[in-house]
């Protein structure tokens, strides 16, 4: 026996038992991964399946619809009040307004907090972060009273302005943008400034276009948050034809109580845009969450 093989034998001998244990560990890891994946996806697949079923079949355990029908979608598309396309448009409007302002004011404010020197900057930034500590629903009474005073609560399209004011800018957007602008070399806009450009021009021409990844994160997180938003639309949107998809869902759930196919069709329509965003821009969801939520 050579020295080498002795050494190998010594090393291999105590290892053999942990190898078995590690195999079991591997097996357990994959068992958990697969079980939980099933738990995650089956409810969604079940929802899609039901949206193509007839009402009687929606009560049975069939994964593939026996007589697939688009009736659920047709009902949701034509018979709800307001109809699905209207709610879809309303949701898109609420989300788009918030996204535009969060991107613009988030970038502009983030630029100021990161790169411009002015007295009280750090204190003001802490103040901004402090707003994350005040939970949304605690503000219900004062915000509602302020919106009443501004005449934004009475039924009408001005309700959208009410939602917009509340969702126009979030501390998270400012935070994400500030962190991004801190990573860019500081002499970048100096040259533009020497050429006589003002601070806004330097921001708009040079830094804003550079910030595309951070802007995408802010846009996607804001869009997702407001598209999914339920509390403020419930409080503020008065007229039925101004309802968003999420608000409509919560109301039709009582109206249609057990007419599952159209309800599930609505769930699908309300979720698909976010799922598409997630499929294409997954890294922004995850990245934004860990930078914004952890440090905020």
């Amino acid at each position: 026996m050579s020295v080498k093989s002795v050494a190998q034998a010594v090393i291999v001998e105590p290892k053999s038992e942990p190898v078995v244990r590690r195999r079991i560990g591997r097996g357990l890891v994959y068992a958990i991964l697969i079980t939980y994946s099933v738990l995650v996806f089956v409810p969604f697949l079940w929802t899609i399946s039901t949206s193509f079923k007839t009402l009687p079949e929606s009560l049975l355990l069939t994964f593939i619809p026996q007589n697939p029908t688009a009736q659920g979608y047709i009902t949701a598309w034509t018979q709800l009040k307001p109809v699905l396309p209207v709610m879809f448009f309303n949701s898109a409007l609420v989300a788009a307004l918030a996204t535009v302002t969060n991107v613009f004011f988030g970038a502009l404010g983030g630029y100021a907090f990161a790169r411009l020197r002015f007295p009280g900057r750090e204190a003001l930034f802490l103040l901004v972060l402090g707003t994350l500590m005040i939970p949304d629903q605690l503000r219900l009474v004062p915000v509602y009273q302020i919106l009443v005073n501004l005449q934004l609560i009475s039924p009408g399209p001005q309700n959208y302005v009410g939602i917009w004011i509340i969702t126009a800018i979030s501390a998270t957007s400012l935070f994400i943008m500030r962190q991004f602008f801190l990573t860019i070399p500081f002499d970048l806009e100096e040259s533009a400034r020497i050429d006589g450009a003002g601070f806004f021009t330097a921001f708009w021409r040079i830094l804003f276009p550079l910030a595309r990844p951070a802007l995408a994160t802010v846009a996607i997180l804001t869009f997702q948050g407001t598209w999914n938003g339920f509390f403020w639309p419930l409080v503020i949107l008065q007229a039925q034809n101004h309802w968003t998809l999420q608000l409509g869902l919560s109301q039709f759930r009582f109206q249609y109580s057990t007419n599952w196919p159209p309800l599930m069709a609505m769930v699908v329509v309300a979720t698909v845009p976010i799922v598409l965003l997630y499929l294409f821009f997954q890294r922004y969801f995850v990245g934004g969450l860990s930078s914004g939520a952890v440090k905020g």
Partner: protein
Amino acid sequence: MFGIRRGSLGTERAQEALAGYSFIAIPLILFLIFNIGSLFYSAYISLWRWGILGPTEFLGPRNYEFILRDDIFHIAIKNSIYYTIVVVPIQMALGLLLAVVVNQIWRGRAFFRAAFYFPAIASSAAITVLYIYIMSPDGLFNHVLQLVGVNAAGLPNGGDWLGHQKTAMNSIIALNAWTTSGTMMLFYLGQLQSIPSDVYEAARVDGSGTWTAFWRITFPLLRPAHYLVATTSVIGALQMFDQAIIAGGTDGNPNYALMTIVLYLYNATIKQYEFGYAASVGIVLFAIIFAATLIQRRLFGSADWASAR
């Protein structure tokens, strides 16, 4: 010469400060009115009898006496605290389990991470409505129970999980453990990946098993993540609202089983227009959340939670 330069530098500085203030002005005004200001406004409103037309009578602290004497408020407090105490440990344990498991593999890690976060991206309304369907008497959950030999119709709740007083809140707990576990997993995963691997090497040399190494080394090292996950989920849990009103309506049916503090606050504001009363409920909720956060600070030490990544 120097004088002029200092002068131009001065105006330059002033211009920069002016630009800075004007660039943050709109967000700051909105925050001052709708966040920070509204907290103080809320405290002020809570001292009045205050309806849709504004204040009518100064009550001092009497609104707080009224809510403490209201039976429904007691139910709301009890439900919210029960919900929080049960759901938070489940969310933490599930999030940690998923993070550890996902961290064990190389191939497919990105897939499972994305998959487990998936329920968190859908809206609470969509998730709750699909859950109501799954947990209904003829729903998928009861079909699955049937497959393993349990006849749901014979259970004390008749298989109506969200419609029965005894099982409604626990069903919502299961739902929200499911939707938030992916978020908690991401928090833990970030922290797990920051633990240097030589820490584990050292443990292996010591002869510690995987299990021992986890409890002795990994678990304590995750303290910043524990703190972050615990505070996030406690604050979220104390504010549970969407699922309660969508599944149980404004009364939190059945029989107030889903009445939560925020649902109570919502009713007092939007249904009864008792703004003064509702504001005092909000202040009580704020006090509870504040106290809970302080307790957790004690529990997990003043960990440097900003480094939790």
